[in-house]
């Protein structure tokens, strides 16, 4: 009798507790909850972008390294990393495997201190010598994933003692620390392992000092990682095993998450699926901050866009607000320059920017006697939709538009051929001076830029060198002003992909916001944990 009574009480108690828990908890309101150790997590990556690593995972040769942030940071950790408050504000680059840094020689030299006692997973030490070896190797590699540093001619990369790396530049390089997080120099490989395995084998089974080590690597298919017990951050990572799989797109990824074969999908862009995922109580959708707006690059070197009136016509014919409402359901603010509200130096408006005005567009087209445009882009769901909308809008102004989208190889060919007329791309980055930033799209002498304007070149250079944020801000505003005045390239809005996770997963960059430095948010995998319940 007593036992039964006790059991009934227990049952009643359990029911009361269960009843008190709200059934539909979304969002990371478990932040107060304590992270738990353990768990095996599968990350799904889109095979068209981050789920593709055909050249291996050696930072010196991984051309897709900028898209493979998850793979690289899990294996290598990183000298620096980008962190932010949970809501994405106050983002800054902080030292991770580095201990700190100081600028000397009016910004032309930077001394980076390395944290003591860090070991690669093969037991050898990650010290200044190892870092110097790496940076030298990366800068000499043929990959364009290295940073665009103007290194000094004499001994630009040296070690001072066992814990300090000295980098010398020709001009002051204020953005150097920020540039680490998107470049291959952030990932330090074990020189011992590299030498004993040889580069060909190393790129398949790399050795780093990150939170995880490689178990198996099937290129562009599946990467299996296990916890690094000697990781330099105590009690991290939380996860025991991390499996990274490539999958064919948002739809199969969404179904895999629903079926439980994956816990994280990075970078969902298909808007109808995002709507579905948001309604799904088993999943948590986190829209990351936006840092790179869509821009319609116009090739000012050849007809028709060597004529400013044609360029202005495009500005007037483009209805960004309609695209924003129709495609993105009003989710993102429009940009008039290469910055967005998730990144640095953002200003929402540029004085004198030519906004949508169909009559002016038609008038200009008539003046020109007609306008025919070939508009291309890199093949992607959202880009294709934006291009289609633009085609319709421009046709209304009398601009005959053909649209096409290419894979990467074809796109590069298009740019290099020099015959391209208009390209929908993204421009800018969290820090406009780094990565596929502004220089890439607006400097002279670069095939991927439609602009040849020495004023912009000099402004960008100064902004990259200045150590004063206020001055950089003013300079970037001037660049934006110039682009707008000369009608070089209209901007639309900055769209950021979302992370979709099952509700038991928590982590920075997954369930909290971190601005993407270039395209994808860099998730801090050593801080990711799963509730075991």
């Amino acid at each position, binding site marked *: 009798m007593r036992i039964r009574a006790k059991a009934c009480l227990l049952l009643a108690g359990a029911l009361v507790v269960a009843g008190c828990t709200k059934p539909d908890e979304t969002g990371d309101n478990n932040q107060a909850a304590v992270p738990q150790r353990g768990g095996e997590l599968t990350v799904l990556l889109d095979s068209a972008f981050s789920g593709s690593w055909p050249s291996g995972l050696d930072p010196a040769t991984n051309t897709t390294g900028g898209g493979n942030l998850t793979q690289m940071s899990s294996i290598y950790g990183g000298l620096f990393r980008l962190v932010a408050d949970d809501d994405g504000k106050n983002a800054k680059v902080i030292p991770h495997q580095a201990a700190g840094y100081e600028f000397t020689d009016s910004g032309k030299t930077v001394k980076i201190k390395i944290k003591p006692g860090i070991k690669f997973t093969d037991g050898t030490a990650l010290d200044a010598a190892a870092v110097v070896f790496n940076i030298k190797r990366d800068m000499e590699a043929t990959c364009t994933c290295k940073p665009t540093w103007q290194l000094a001619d004499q001994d630009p990369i040296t070690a001072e003692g066992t814990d300090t790396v000295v980098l010398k530049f020709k001009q002051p390089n204020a953005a150097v620390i920020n540039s680490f997080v998107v470049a291959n120099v952030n990932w330090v490989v074990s020189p011992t392992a590299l030498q004993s395995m040889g580069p060909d084998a190393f790129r398949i089974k790399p050795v780093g000092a990150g939170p995880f080590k490689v178990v198996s690597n099937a290129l562009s298919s599946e990467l299996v990682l296990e916890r690094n017990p000697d990781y330099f951050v105590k009690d991290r990572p939380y996860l025991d095993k991390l499996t990274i799989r490539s999958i064919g*797109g*948002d*739809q199969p990824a*969404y*179904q895999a998450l629903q079926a439980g074969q994956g816990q994280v999908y990075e970078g969902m862009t*298909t*808007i*109808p*699926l995002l*709507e*579905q995922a948001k309604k799904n109580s088993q999943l948590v959708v986190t829209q990351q901050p936006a840092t790179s707006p869509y821009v319609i690059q116009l090739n000012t070197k050849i007809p028709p866009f060597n004529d400013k009136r044609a360029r202005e016509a495009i500005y007037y014919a483009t209805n960004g607000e*309609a*695209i924003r*409402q*129709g*495609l993105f359901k009003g989710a993102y603010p429009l940009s008039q320059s290469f910055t967005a509200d998730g990144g640095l130096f953002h200003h929402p408006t540029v004085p004198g920017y030519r906004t949508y005005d169909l009559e002016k567009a038609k008038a200009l087209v008539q003046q020109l006697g007609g306008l025919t445009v070939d508009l291309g882009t890199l*093949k992607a*769901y959202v880009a*294709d*939709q934006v291009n*289609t*909308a633009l*085609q*319709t*809008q421009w*046709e209304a102004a009398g601009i005959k538009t053909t*649209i*096409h*989208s*290419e*894979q990467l190889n*074809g796109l590069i060919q298009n740019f290099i051929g020099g015959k391209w007329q208009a390209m929908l791309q993204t421009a800018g980055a969290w820090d406009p001076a780094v990565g596929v930033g502004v220089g890439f799209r607006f400097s002279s002498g670069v095939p991927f830029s439609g602009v040849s304007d020495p004023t912009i070149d000099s402004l960008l250079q100064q902004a990259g060198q200045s150590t004063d944020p206020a001055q950089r801000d003013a300079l970037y505003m001037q660049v934006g002003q110039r682009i707008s005045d000369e009608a070089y390239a209209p901007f639309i809005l900055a769209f950021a992909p979302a992370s979709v996770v099952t509700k038991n997963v928590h982590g920075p960059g997954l369930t909290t916001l971190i601005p993407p430095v270039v395209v994808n948010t860099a998730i801090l995998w050593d801080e990711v944990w799963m509730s075991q319940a």
Partner: protein
Amino acid sequence: MALTEVQVSSSAVVADETAPTRTRAWLRKLHIGVPAGLLLLIFFACFVLPLVAPIPKPTGGDILNSLQPAFTPGHILGTDDNGNDILARILVGGRTSLFVALTVNLLGLVIGGGLGALAAQAGGIVDSIIMRLFDVLIAIPSLALIVAVSLSLGPGVRNTILTLSFFSVPAFARISRAETLRLREQPFMVAARLSGTSTWRIVVRHLAPNIGPQLMTFAMLGLGIVMVIEGALSFLGLGIRPPAPSWGNMIFQGQLSLSGTPMLVVWPSIALFLTVVGFNQLGEAVRLRWSGR
């Protein structure tokens, strides 16, 4: 020919013995009539209707109208993610899909079927050369051939037809050759050869009516397959380039967000299904009529 007459009467003895002859004749008319009617309707809707009726344009839709559900005023089947009317896209897309599918299968039937039969009938070195050439094409994995050809030629209707014909022609040739080989040793074929009939005449007068039915079945099946494959080419960025519609590329675009936009897949699939059923039923019925049974 005497032989076929004998076959007809014997088939009357051997064949199924159920309903009385008059109902069977009526049913036979229906067998042809129903699918023919359905197909005529589809063809009319796709080729004629857009020209005469006030149907919205299939492209150039207003992005603010995106993803409207069915029965929205002005858009009876709703709109797609770019704001284009789905019904208009199905009708105009049908034109493209039907054109591509019919052309590809016609080319296959005539060129492939003809060459295959010729090869089998002629035998010897002619057979060897023709079939080895086709063997080379067949031996290359279809994916490699499609992607390589399409990347060099680019997307579009004409190049899609060309690319897909690389498959239909050898396929028909092989089928046609196999069937011809089978028939070659039949008494009437041997007789024709012995009496000195020219190869060409044998192919046209004797082979074609006998292998025709099999090739027709294959062609009918092929129609549906081509329409679907053409959509799959979109997966590789080839085929009919959006926003120009085709049933295949509409289904493909729709499935990218299947969980969110199932109707974008359902409507063109229904159109495709009805057409494929129509063609197959018609093919069956015509084949039965043709072979006199």
